[in-house]
């Protein structure tokens, strides 16, 4: 292995902390691969060897696991993993066009990294934010309700070295390596950072309270802790539907 002494020692300490979370140490492999990415920016041959030694497995066994999961990168990754969702819903609502323009602007395609290593671009599968379609993700933070214009500004800001802000998430997007360390299970103390809940998330809550769209309401949501009490009132549960009911 080619890790220097200090890096090796730190990795070993972290790996021990990971393995201690599980009754069987092999369960620590996925977080350990995230850990390796937080140091090398991808799952390097050194990283694979390191995991193998920690877990008493062969390098082939580690590789077999690492290659199964798309978040583990086999080549040095960009500092920002930029993803455009092109699964059906986002694609139809504009994701395909956003992808086309973003890809053209950076000059790279799917799973490619630009020359200075700032951005790795990816066609994303569904990232569970369909109520905010079309969606982009940067280092696994949400960028909601995207348009080509917003997407190009985002990419230009990254290329210009500016900090970028997700729609819902931390105050700024952390680097690929920093985020990988969080995914390895080491908190970065940023859980309380907040860009707001998002309109779609609260659509039902607001309707239940006011019967009106969230958009037309003043930002009163944060002041009313009585929401919990509103719930049981609506328990009558007799939908007005006709077809297919009561069949036994």
């Amino acid at each position, binding site marked *: 292995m080619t890790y220097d002494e200090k890096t090796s020692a730190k990795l070993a300490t972290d790996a021990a902390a990971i393995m201690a979370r599980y009754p069987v140490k092999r369960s620590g492999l996925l977080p350990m691969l995230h850990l390796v990415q937080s140091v090398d920016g991808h799952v390097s041959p050194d990283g694979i060897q390191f995991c193998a030694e920690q877990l008493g497995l062969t390098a082939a066994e580690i590789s077999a696991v690492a290659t199964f999961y798309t978040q583990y990168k086999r080549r040095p990754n960009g500092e920002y993993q930029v993803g455009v969702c092109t699964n059906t819903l986002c694609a139809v609502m504009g994701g395909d066009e956003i992808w086309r323009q973003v*890809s053209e602007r950076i000059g790279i395609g799917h799973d490619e990294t630009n020359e200075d290593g700032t951005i790795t671009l990816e066609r994303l599968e569904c990232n569970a934010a369909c109520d905010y379609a079309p969606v982009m993700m940067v280092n696994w933070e949400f960028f909601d309700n995207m348009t080509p214009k917003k997407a190009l500004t985002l990419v230009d800001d990254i290329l210009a070295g500016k900090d970028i802000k997700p729609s819902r998430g931390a105050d700024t997007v952390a680097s690929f390596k920093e985020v990988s360390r969080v995914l390895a299970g080491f908190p970065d103390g940023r859980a309380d950072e907040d860009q707001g809940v998002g309109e779609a998330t609260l659509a*039902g809550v607001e309707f239940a309270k006011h019967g009106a769209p969230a958009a037309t309401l003043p930002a009163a949501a944060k002041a009313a802790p009585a929401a919990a009490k509103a719930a049981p009132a609506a328990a009558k549960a007799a939908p007005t539907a006709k077809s297919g009911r009561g069949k036994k």
Partner: protein
Amino acid sequence: MTDLTPVISATWGLERSWNFDTYCANGGYEGATKSLKMAPADIIQAVKDSGLRGRGGAGFPTGMKWGFLPAPDGGPRYLVVNADESEPGTCKDIPTMMNSPHTLVEGVIITSFAIGCNHAFIYVRGEVVHVYRRVMKAVQEAYDNGWLGKNIQGTGFDLDVTVHAGAGAYICGEETALLDSLEGRRGQPRLKPPFPAVSGLYARPTVVNNVESIASVPAILNKGVEWFASMGTEKSKGMGFFSLSGHIKRPGQYEAPLGITLRELLEMAGGMRDGHELKFWTPGGSSTPMFTDENLDTPLDYEGVGAAGSMLGTRALQIFDETTCVVRAVERWTEFYKHESCGKCTPCREGTYWLTQILHRLEAGHGTKADIDQLLATSDSIAGRSFCPFGDGAVASIVSSVKLFREEFERHVDEAGCPFDHAKSALFDYSTSADSLTGADSLTGADPLTDAEEANA
């Protein structure tokens, strides 16, 4: 008109709703307080009586699942929370964990106590870092406040919770694949039986439940079985998230009694976008056969949706208007299944590949009418012929769309191209270029569709 019933979402939007203090100030941990004074068997019975069914898609009765664990033998028993939300269209567990992770943690405590588990796991998909931060913090806060660790609240009950990040594999939402993944392996489904209840994580008795199922438990124990069972329909009790997305005015999370209809939900969501009408929608994600405006009044409960030929699934309502090409939609979903097939079973691994090839060809206008029948034939070779339900899900949109929109597939053949202007489906204005229609790579000029076709010729 059915009213919404925010229970899990009741505190969303409050100041720092994800924090322990906010949660406790709004009735948090009251369900756990009551539960820890109960006999574990009584908790299981309460959840059985409530009628709660799995909210991850399959709808299996939650209490019954817990009851399947064999009698304690002195060895460990595990609870694993499936927080690997990845089904296209599904977006309910992510906001739950982002905005009220303590609801989940409290549910984990009650469930673990009920089934005799001292080490639970929350398997969160890896592609949502802020959600992961929030869940880790909630677990830490629970430890700091005596709700996790040794001798919880002085009851003598010990529980550790490990929050685990996945690494990008849809298949890990399948419970046995998730267990393999949690054991540090490739996430591939196991052959059942044995079921996880008997031989799950580390071959020990294990309960695997979806986030929303577990997050429903505290309210059931706090407010009572009757309260919960008063919501919903005869066999589909309680409330659940209906996640509306697509061409509608106010997409989002609507927590409502099971049995509500799309017509009612659409009314709350402001209806379709202006000047457009409903064409097709999925009741429970892309793995459930699609519906049309014929199903506006279908009660969205397990029985109602089943009787209408689909599945309630995850209540992920992806709603498309008349500008949307159904062939394009299905082609893209199928590409997803091809990408995510774990490769263990041949019909699924090979079948999804060939389905994608055929759908590419059809959408690009290079298909034949025989291709349409081939889609159905290949789908038939996949459904029911794999270890897990992934294959069934992969062909659901294909089979249902050909049944409902066959003439649209035929138009792609007759007109030698897609008859739709894709730009019209987008939420912003742009002019459709030939490149974006065919999927040609604007940089290299390579057209993957034509290339694939030439390779096949």
